[in-house]
């Protein structure tokens, strides 16, 4: 059986490599897509957010100094870059020419007004063309206003209890450090940067398209009239089936490995330890073959099989998190996600990318293998029925 199976697999591979559309689907399209996503969306999501702000301090008092200190903290945390404007007009000009997203105008008498418990204002000039930066700018001012109001409340309380230095109290209150501070940090153990997410997501998504040709090639043999010639050859029917599936398996492995290596060396994706990646790829291709075989064998023609498989693979791909991360979602969507092999493959690669060891990968690997065994058995039984004379 082995020799005939290898001969059939060799023939199928030769046909596959001559079919340019198959190469496109297996390697060129996914790799191109990964590159495009990395180039277009990568910089947006990879970099920490930062916005430029300008400050015109016409007050020069304790409140203005407190505001300046807070902005300095924000700047130090990397969320903003601050510019001093000598005049209000200059500050407004910086907003108008989009040099900054927000300008703060600290008007004369601000600190005195705060200390006297009178109406006090920080004017925020926002650039409508930089909505996110402007929103952050407003949030910074809001945060400071809340802090000032808390200080005013403290001062008012102190005065009511008999204190007699309102300006000193105000200054002291503003100097108290906020118990909460901002810091830019990745979720611990997340390890799934944008490039790696899309590299693995696209590889998993296209893996299911690539391997479907195994069953489709059996249907093709029937439609092209070559199945009777195979069936009258002195070989077992099992060898025909094994040859077909072997070719699809090898193509699935090869295309995913090419995507793995390409995205690693050309885009800097981090899939994780090689051995774990290889094991996940092999298990994933087996599960993908099982799924596509179980589905495609319900179709009567190759065209039907291709359409049904494509529909299921796209839906499963979306549900399973190959387009956007679903590992943190909960509820019904989470349950549905986990019912797809895509989810477990993505979970496996996520953990592998985070540098987690074999033990932590095992649940995902077990789920993938379970899919491979169950769907593969269904697919195998149903595919066997295709290898006969109609």
């Amino acid at each position, binding site marked *: 059986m082995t020799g005939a199976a290898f001969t059939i697999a060799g023939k199928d591979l030769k046909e596959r490599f001559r079919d340019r559309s198959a190469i496109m689907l297996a390697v060129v399209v996914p790799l191109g897509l990964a590159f495009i996503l990395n180039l277009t969306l990568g910089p947006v999501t990879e970099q920490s957010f930062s916005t430029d702000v300008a400050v015109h301090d016409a007050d020069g008092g304790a409140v203005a100094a407190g505001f300046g200190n807070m902005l300095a903290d924000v700047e130090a945390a990397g969320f903003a870059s601050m510019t001093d404007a000598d005049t209000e007009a200059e500050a407004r000009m910086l907003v108008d020419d989009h040099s900054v997203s927000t300008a703060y105008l600290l008007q004369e008498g601000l600190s005195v007004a705060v200390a006297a418990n009178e109406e006090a204002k920080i004017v925020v000039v926002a650039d409508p063309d930089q909505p996110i930066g402007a929103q952050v700018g407003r949030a910074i001012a809001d945060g400071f206003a809340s802090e000032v109001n808390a200080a005013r409340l403290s001062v008012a309380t102190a005065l009511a209890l008999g204190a007699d230095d309102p300006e000193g109290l105000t200054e002291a209150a503003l100097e108290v450090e906020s118990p909460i501070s901002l810091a830019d940090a990745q979720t611990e153990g997340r390890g799934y940067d944008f490039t790696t997410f899309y590299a693995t997501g696209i590889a998993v998504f296209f893996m299911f398209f690539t391997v479907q040709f195994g069953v489709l090639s059996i249907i093709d043999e029937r439609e092209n*009239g070559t199945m009777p*010639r195979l069936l009258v050859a002195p070989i077992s029917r099992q060898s025909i089936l094994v040859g077909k599936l072997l070719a699809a398996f090898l193509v699935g492995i090869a295309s995913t490995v090419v995507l793995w290596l390409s995205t690693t060396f050309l885009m800097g994706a981090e899939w994780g330890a090689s051995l774990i990646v290889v094991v996940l790829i092999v298990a994933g291709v087996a599960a993908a073959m099982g799924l596509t075989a179980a589905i495609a064998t319900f179709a009567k023609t190759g065209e039907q099989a291709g359409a049904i498989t494509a529909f299921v693979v796209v839906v499963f791909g979306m549900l399973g998190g190959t387009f956007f991360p679903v590992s943190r979602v909960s509820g019904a969507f989470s349950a549905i996600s986990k019912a797809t092999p895509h989810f477990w493959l993505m979970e496996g690669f996520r953990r592998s990318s985070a540098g987690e060891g074999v033990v932590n990968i095992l649940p995902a690997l077990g789920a993938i293998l379970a899919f491979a065994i169950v769907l593969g058995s269904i697919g195998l039984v149903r595919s066997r029925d295709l290898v006969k004379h109609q």
Partner: protein
Amino acid sequence: MADVVLECSNLRKEYGDLVAVDGVGFTIEEGETYGLLGPNGAGKTTTISMIAGLLDNDGGTAIVSGNEITTKSTTAKAVLGLVPQDLAIYPDLTARENLRFFGKLYGIDGSLDERVDEILAIIELSDRADDQTNEYSGGMKRRLNIGLGLLHKPDLLILDEPTVGVDPQSRNAILESVERLGSEGMAVLYTTHYMEEAERLCDRVGIIDEGTVVAEGTRRELVALVGERDRLHLELSGDAAAVADAVSAISDVESCSSAGSELEVVALNASRALPDVVLCVNDAGLDVHSVQVSEPDLESVFLHLTGKALRE
């Protein structure tokens, strides 16, 4: 006596309530071309599918070169070749690659390249051997389709309506190939619903209808079986009644009738009787203006046996 290559008896195939093949049996000897003649749906393809090991039969046996054939019998399959009705070649492979692929499946190892070259020469595709077959004309594809069936030098070659949808030139080339195979000693089972092909190629013919072989034999045996005779229709220069009695007396003539200047002769063998009939007419002082010879063909035999035309 030549060896029997195919011996099938009482073959039966049912699809639910439908009996597609019912008790079909015949033998084919080495070097013999056997035609299975019948209209579409008569059971020809189902019969050969069982003989080729594509379908399991529900009854009866088919033995090829001493090996009973089933869907699992690789030994029997190794000695038969099939040329399916539909083209069975890979369009993305070259002719050479198609031949090499099937050659490997048939276990031709050491001499594969040599054999492939031989077949390419036989089917006259040597100069296009390394072109992908999707660039071939319909006739070239048909020739390769036949070549693939011959590759492993089978004892029995089954051709299932190989000329359906083929242009006249390619059809003639195919028929010549089949004639050559028979003369080289290969047993050939040829199914067709073209009566003229069966008459040209087949040493013996089995007429199949509604899953049953209704008659079998050489063309002449089948014609004789149904009582059909050759006919001569002559247009004479004068009253034909004057020679009718004399013509009736000729040994190969069975009967003769006249109407005006027309003479209708029923003969056991028209071609043998014709010179004597013409001589007799001349002796009576008449000239023959025209002659029409009609010999009963398998079409008329089929019509006689089944009450329907072959192409129905």
